[in-house]
Every structure is written in C-alpha cells, then in structure tokens.
C-alpha cells in the first residue's frame, strides 16, 4: 500500500499548527487591543456636543478657573455642569450673535436645558466623589489631562478600575500641593515627586483605600 501522506504533508502540518497557534494568540491579542483601544475606552475620542465648547479657549485664552463653571467640585460628589445662566453671564455681552451659541440662547429663552454628552462616564455601580479627591490634593489634570489644551473635550484615561487602583495603591505618586490642584499646567517641580509625594500623603492624611466598598456599594 502506498504511503497515505507524502513527505510534503510534514510541512503542511507544521505550518497549520503554527498558524493555529498564531491565530489563537492573535485573537487574544485582538481582544486585549480592542479592550484597551479607543473604540472601547473612548480615550482621545472627542464627543459631538450640541455646542462645540472649547476648554482650550475658555481656560487658556480667557484664563477662567475650573471652579467658575464646575462649582460643586469641592463640595459634592458631582463636579457640576454649569447652568445655562452661567454661560449667558458672559455671552449676553459678548458673541451675542454667534450662530454657534444659538442653542445656548435658545435654552435661556425657552427654559429648556442644554444637553451635554458625558465624556467621563463611570459604570453605574461605581461611586466616585470629586470633592474628597480635590480636597486631598489630586489635581484635575491628573485624571482629566490637559483640558486647557483641548478644543473639544475628550478623555485621556480609560477610567478602568486598574487605572483607579494604581493611584489608590500608591497615592504618593500622584498627589500635589492643594494650591496646585486647579492648575492644569502643573508638573512636579524639582525636588521631584518621590520627595514631595510621601510628605504630602502624611500632611494631608491620605489613606490608601482599596476596599471594594470604597467605590462599589
């Protein structure tokens, strides 16, 4: 009886085995890439908003403090989105006819709220509190990035639990002096973070909270 497989079958077998392994690995890699990529995380994806609001213009060009609009960031879990009235405080005086601002004026006229698409959105079983982070010396830009340089707002971090826990495990790597919290351009001065981090952690009595119920309840 003739050989069932000729010699070339060896190569076919080797190649197909390798291909299967590579394909398997590829699928796993693709899954990770998908999970970590912007498609899923939304990182660096600017959202379409009814008004193309530019933080870059308002913060960098005009020098408006974060808290002028996000008023409750120091007192509440929610940082606060400004009421239409806050926008109109200036825009009833300047750029009063800009077509771009028509939705704002319409909201003010009709009493119907503007609707903003959430850029930083945590799952509903996560309870984050802005006020305690700000009070403990975590700067806006630590999580939100250089918002002052964003013409349209996007997020720079995944907001995955892994990312949160990084800081909760070692807050000394991220803490900054309280007077620098609202400075978007803050960078660690020399002497570097290794020196000021532990000092601030002790001074602000920062705890490394990693209990589940810190965020989930």
């Amino acid at each position: 009886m003739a050989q069932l497989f000729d010699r070339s079958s060896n190569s076919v077998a080797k190649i197909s085995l390798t291909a299967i392994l590579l394909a398997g690995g590829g699928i796993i890699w693709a899954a990770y890439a998908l999970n970590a990529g912007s498609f899923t995380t939304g990182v660096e994806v600017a959202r379409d908003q009814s008004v193309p609001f530019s933080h870059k213009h308002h913060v960098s060009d005009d020098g408006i403090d974060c808290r002028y609009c996000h008023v409750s960031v120091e007192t509440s879990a929610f940082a606060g989105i400004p009421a239409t009235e806050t926008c109109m405080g200036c825009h009833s005086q300047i750029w009063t006819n800009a077509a771009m601002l028509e939705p704002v004026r319409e909201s003010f006229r009709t009493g119907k709220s503007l609707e903003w698409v959430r850029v930083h959105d945590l799952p509903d079983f996560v309870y984050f509190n802005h006020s305690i982070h700000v009070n403990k010396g975590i700067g806006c830009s630590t999580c939100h990035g250089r918002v002052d340089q964003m013409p349209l707002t996007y997020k720079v971090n995944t907001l995955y639990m892994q990312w949160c826990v990084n800081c909760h495990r070692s807050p000394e790597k991220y803490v900054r002096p309280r007077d620098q919290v609202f400075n978007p351009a803050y960078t660690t001065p020399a002497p570097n973070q290794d020196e000021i981090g532990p000092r601030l952690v002790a001074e602000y009595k920062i705890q490394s909270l990693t209990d589940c119920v810190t965020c989930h309840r």
Partner: protein
Amino acid sequence: VKTMGKELPRYWRSLEELAQSEGFRAFVEDEFPNRTPDWNNPASRRRFLTLMGASIALAGAPGCTVQPKEMIVPYVRQPEDYVPGNPLFYATSWVERGIATGLLVESHLGRPTKIEGNPSHPASLGATDAAMQASVLTLYDPDRSQAVTRNGNISSWGGFITALTAARDAAGLKQGEGFRLLTGTVTSPTLADQIQGFLAAYPGAKWHQYESCGRHSARAGAIAAFGRPFNTIYRFERARVIVSLDADFLCSTMPGSLRYSRDYSARRRGAAENGDAQPPRLYIAEGTPSLAGAMAEHRFRMRTSEVAAFAAAFLDEVKAPGSGPATVRAVARDLQAHPGDSIVIPGEHQPAAVHVIAQAINQRLGNAGKTVILTDPVEAKPVDEIASLTELVTDIRQGAVEALLILGGNPVYDAPADLNFLEALKGVKFRAHLGLYSNETAEWCHWHIPEAHYLEAWSDARAYDGTASIVQPLIAPIYGGKTRHDVMNVLGNQADRSSHDTVRDYWQSQHAKPDFNDFWQVSLHDGLITGTAFSETTPPAAKLPASPVPAASGLEIVFRPDPAIGDGALSNNAWLQEMPKPQNKMTWDNAVWISPKSAAVHGVTTGDVVEIAFQSRKVEGPVWILPGHADESLTVHFGYGRTRAGKVANEIGFNAYALRSSTGVWHGAEVTITRKSGGYPFAVTEHTQTMEERDPFRIATFAEYHQNPEFANPEDKHVSDATTMFPQWEYAKHKWGMAIDLTACVGCQACTIACQSENNIPVVGKIEVAKGRHMNWLRVDRYYNGSLDDPQTYFQPVPCMHCENALCELVCPVAATVHSAEGLNEMVYNRCVGTRYCSNNCPYKVRRFNFFLYADWDTQSLFGVRNPDVSVRSRGVMEKCSYCVQRINSAKIEAEKQERPLADGEIVTACQQVCPAEAIVFGDLNDPNSRVAKLKRQRRDYSLLEELNTRPRTTYLARLRNPNPDLEKG
C-alpha cells in the same frame, strides 16, 4: 395542634415547626425551596456542555462593552445655594386619619427619596413607622389617578370648577341646603377655617366626617366620662406600672403611638443599661395578639368583648380592694403601690365604657395630670363619625342631598356594610370625589379629581398633642393633583388661590405681627408651629359608667386595621404588602385569625377557606391559626379585598368591611363559620431563614440578671480565639459594629421598610415569597415561648452579622464577598456570578438572591424613588445588609474634608434612624467611648450562634423583663 402532649422546645417559631411534617422539613432544609420546577428543560449532557462552553467563551465579552451614551442635563437657572449631588432635607408632615407626625424628607435633585422622622417634632422625635417609610413609594405609584374624570372620561380642572360652582349655586338658592361635604377626620386648622367659612356663607350645607378606623371609642368615652370631648395623651416616660385594656400603644394606628414607643422603650433601656432606674411593668388584657401584648410582662388572654367586664372588675377592685379575683387583686395592688406614676390605658378598639373606666381609675390613682394628660380635642370639630355618616346616608335616602363632595377617603369601600352606602350614594344628583386613586368611591362619582400626595401638597394638621404641623411639598404634583384646600377655594370663589397662599394666609391671620415672615420661615424649617401643643386642661371627675353589658357567649368577631397596610388607604403599596406582618410573618394576604383550641373545636386549620356569617352578611376568607389568640374569637383585618386599588392590591385577600356593622364597629358576637375548602396558599416568611433550635433568643427577668449577669453567655457556648486557623484581622482605623437591644425592640418592622427604602430593595410578589425568595435585608424573627394557647412572643431583628470570621467569604469562588479593613463584610455586585455558595454557608441566613430581574427596570415613574447612592441590583446577584455603607462613606468623606475625626453618632444606619424604640445602635468599636462599644460591654450582650466562632459584629443585648412576683407562674 397534633403535637399537644409532646414536650415543647424552649423557643418555637410556628405550629408547622412543632408538627415537623416531612414536607415541612424538606422546605426548611432547602436553602431556597421550590427551585426545581423552574428548570423544566430536559437537559442532556451534550446540551449542558454546549452551554457551558459557550458561557465560558462569552464570559469575558461583557467586560469590554462600550459605555452607553449618557447625557448630562444641567439647570437653565440653578437655584441658589443648591449643590448638585448633595441631598437636601425638608421638614413636612405625614397625616394619617387626620393626625400629623413630623418628618424630614431627603430630596435628590428635586425628587423625594427617603423619609426620616423630624427630631424636633413631638410625635416623632426622629422616628417613623413602616407606613411613613413606605409612603414615598405611593408618591411614584403609576396607578395613582392622573386626570380629572367626568363619568369615567377624561375632563379638565376647569370643567370641574364650572360644574362644582353650578352645584353650589343651585344649592345656594336654598341657603346651601342639599349640599354636603364628606371628609375624613379634620385637624387641619386651615381646612377647618375654609370649611367653617363655607358653612357660614351657606348655612344649609352640612359637613360630615368619617374615618373607618378613627378614634370613635376614645371620643365617645371622653363625652361619656366628662360630658364633652377631650384628647387624652400619656406620659410613658414617667410610668412605672402600665395596665393596657386591649390598647396596642406601640407603633400602632393609635395617635402618638410612635412617641409612646420611644418613651416606653427609653425607660426599659434605661433600667437595663444602668440598673438604677426602675423598669416599667406592663400588664395587658387582650384577645388579638398585638405588639404591646408581646412586650407585656403579664398578658391576660381573653375575648375582646370580655375586656370591658375585666375593666369593670378592676375598677371595683381599685375602689374596694380585696373584692376581685386573684389576678385582678395582684395587678390592682401593684398599681396602688405606684399612685401618680402608673397608667391605665384603654384600647382604641374597645367600647366607650372601657375608656370611661380607665379615666375613672386614672383619676382615682392620681395619674390624671401626671402620666395621663387631658387636653382639648385635636379635631377641629369632634363628632361621632359613625353617626355623622349614618346621618348622611339617612338624608340621602330621604332625598335631602343634591350634591355630595367627598374630600379624600373611600366610603364605598370602607363604610359599615349595614349602611349600604353605595346604594345611597347612587341617589345623589351631583357626586364628586377627590382622591389619590380612582378607587371604589370614584367609580360611582360623576367627577373624580386626582389628589396631590402629601409630598406634593401644602397643608397643615395637628399632631396627637395638638402641635400644628406644616405639610410642605418637595415636588410639584406629578399627576397634576389638587389639594383639599384647592377644592374648598373653588367653593369659596377663589379658584386661582394656591394652597400655599391659603395655608400661609391662615397662619398670617393667626400671627398678624410684623415679624410674620421670619415666623413663617422658622415654622417651615422646623415643620411645626412652635408652642401650639395644647396645654393641659382639668376635667371634672369622671362619671362612673353603668355596669357594662356582659359579653355574649359564642363565637365573636373582632375587626382591626391590618398590621401592615392599615385601613386600606395604603393597599397599593407593594413594600407594605410584602412586609411580613409582625404576628404571623404573612405577606400579601389577610386571614381569619383563630386560636389553636377554637380551630380544633370548629374543625378548621390554617389554609382552610371559611365562610363567616355575621348579621346576615357573609364573607369568605382563609383561616390562620394564631397561638396566643383568644378562644372563641375571630380576628379579621381591613384593607384587603379591594377592587379598584391598583395593580398591586386588586383582588387579593378578602374585604372585612363587608361584615362590619355601624352598631358595633370593632367587634360583634354571634358569628358562625363554615368550612368551604382547604389548602389556601399563604406566602409566609417565618419558615425560611431559620437558624434551627440553637438558642438565638435569650431572656431573663431583671432579678435573674442581677443575680446572674452572665446568663446570656453560658459557659458551654464560649469558643476561644485560638480555635481558628485563620489569622485574626487587625482593624487599624475604624471597626464598625452594631448592638441590638432586645429589651427595647417592639417588633414593629419599621426597620425592614426603612432598609428597603434606603437600599433599593425590590419586591418579588406573592408567588416568589412563597418560594422563600423575598429580598428584605433586615428581617424580624418572631419566637414563641410556652404553650400553644398562650405563649410569650419575642421579636428579634436580624441584619447581616458582619462576622469577623465570615463563613460566606471563605466559599465565594470569585471573591465577590470580602472583608474590608474596617470589618465590613462587603458584597461586590459586579463580581458576583450567582453561585449562592455564600448563602448556603451563612448560618444566619441573611443573604438574599436575585433569582430574576426583581428590580423594576421598565416603569419610569418608579425610578424616582430610588436612592442614587446605592446600586440597583440585577438578576443573578447575591445581596445583603451593608451596614448602610453609603452613609458610612459619606460621613467619612465629610469628616476628612473638614480634617476632623468622625464623631460617635455621626453615622446612623437606616434601621437605627427609623427605630421608634432606639433599639439599634451602630458605631465604631475602636472608640471605647462610643455608645455601641459601651453597650457591647454590657454583660447581657451576646452573639448569635457564638459557638460557631464567627465573631459577629452585630450582637444582641438579651431581653430583660420585669414580672410581678405575685403572678409569676412556677
């Protein structure tokens, strides 16, 4: 009943447990019984493997879902001083049967979510009961009526104004004759002022008041004793000896009972904690087991109709000592040893004669003016309400009524059956009804106006002691509801005047001073008008009653408001429907209560449907054998058998009002029962979540405790710390713990509903409850001790124990339940995969599992009631008490921001906050001066199942009682 003759265990839960049938054992031993029928798919091995493979392959997929697009909708003009994300609290008042209780209501972004008691209100002092807790759910009830209707078709408020004005003007031609108002009991000064104003303008018009479970007897009793109505209030904080003549003064429908529970329990707690204060001693004569009956040191079981004769014998004994039977002599001696600091309190449901006797005894003992205070009546116009309704019906029959305006209430459903209210009502030409629901009465009215819920309305009312309390809205009427003031304003030709202006103007007329604005703001802030409690009046000596009519022999029937849903106004509230009733842990039903002995005599058993025949009226209902019930007596509860209550309450239970007569509204004799069928399926919670016979409840008398302080911690239960293989936890910062004082707890279940409201706990429905799948995180176990016929009843609230050696934590395969650095036993919903191993391993049976999607994710209007600080759980997830970790976190964050240590008492769990008896205390065990740490140092502090070495953080303070040595049975 079969077990009679066998030796009883020390503590037992139910007759079924004593009988120990095979089916019962199977039910109890299964963690979640009746599971198998749900899986009726004939699963093959191959199919199983296919599904498992697919599940594993897809398990990771949900992890990388993209967050759905969400919108943020800010204000257009944000209210000043308003911080989004932080709740606000407003003072308002809950008004039930006309009587107000002060509340503080939590509001998130303009929606009321949680009810708390108002600490500065005398009727509350910070406590609330289950009905008040649940009232926020009614606000969002999608079954509430949502439009003005005329003959069942949608109409408009403007159309109603025209119609009502025309009806009034037609009557106005005859000075108002033929125009009638029907309200519940009115204590509201503003509403009374409006009604009196209307009656002054139309002197021929008449105002009727009717409340199905009102204070008929107390009013009639005061008139019989003193010749005019008085309001009686009691000072339990001063009472050393209490004799209750069928009075359930603990968290019941009795006005002031919330405050009474607080005062009574404070005294008990004080005596148990300090040892120096004198504990109160409670005697009760009653037929239907009540919460007060369960607290009593001595309970004299007798038919409800025999209480009057007992009271008379008691009065005779007080007048001429030595004349009565031994028990009466002993009680009277005890009372006479404490003149001025005792109370004889008559039951709301006892006839007027008993109230007269109680007043007479209190005067004789010098209690009047000390522990028993008489004031002017809190009602704006106290009337005999049964007579008032009877007069209305008679007048309609005689053709004297042309227009009837019903402001709230539901007389078609709850009027005494012999009045035939519905037949009479049909004879009125113009009938209009204002109500929260388009109920049985609305069905037969030409016009129906949706009423504003109290959280949507401006109004006022008086508390049990006369304190004028403000009802302040937290939200604009969701369904365009109107208040009684709005309707009265239409009659007063002021249809445009708002209820706010009406109430404010009334109080301005009472306080016409330049500082009115400040006065009004302060009053709104406090929720009450300071200094409006009625002062004490001194009545003449009580006239002695004629000797009471001896109780008729034979079977009697006793009518009571339902322990959960009351008189029927709250029927459509699913939280209350699913609240296990304190006495028999039954949900979603009412039943005919009967004693074990009488059940044997009449040949019926639990689950038999019987026909009750009373004064030629017949109703069918299922029987429940209740240990401790009086023999030859039936108790039936109101609030069920509704036909137009809403989706929740329609067609469940039977209607006890259909038996009620206007001559004896609370009980009657000569009843017969006939067994019709058997096997009625009740949904009870008392058999699931059992800890078996492992001594969960511990009790002693004060004397025994002083002799043997270690009685609650017997030697054989002790386990040394070295027994465990696991390392001990260290709790560096906080160490949360809870102490529950069984001496104080009255078993009212308010904590269960408070927990439900705070923690977004879903209801599951009767069928699921019957399978043991109810979701309440905090249950109240009830134990019997003693004979079947007349046992002692004890209550024990059981939340999660937060064990230091938690058995649940060891068996979770996905670490969804873990230990926190502060000793909380954390439940992480997003990790849970639903193996239920934890629940299986929990010896206390406090874990609850979402077998289905119990939380309502579809009904938009119900989203409003949810606490935004707690996750809404989905299907397949285990859940349990978290010690209200959202409150812990929020208090910790506030303290951290202010850079100060947490103060003791700053964190209050929902169950602790609501508790009228202050039986639950939560705090930090690392702080030796915290209240909870001090309580746990008491020697009567014990752990449940401590022999298992779980080291629970929730512990109990054993119950202490103070029996009369003369009466204590060997």
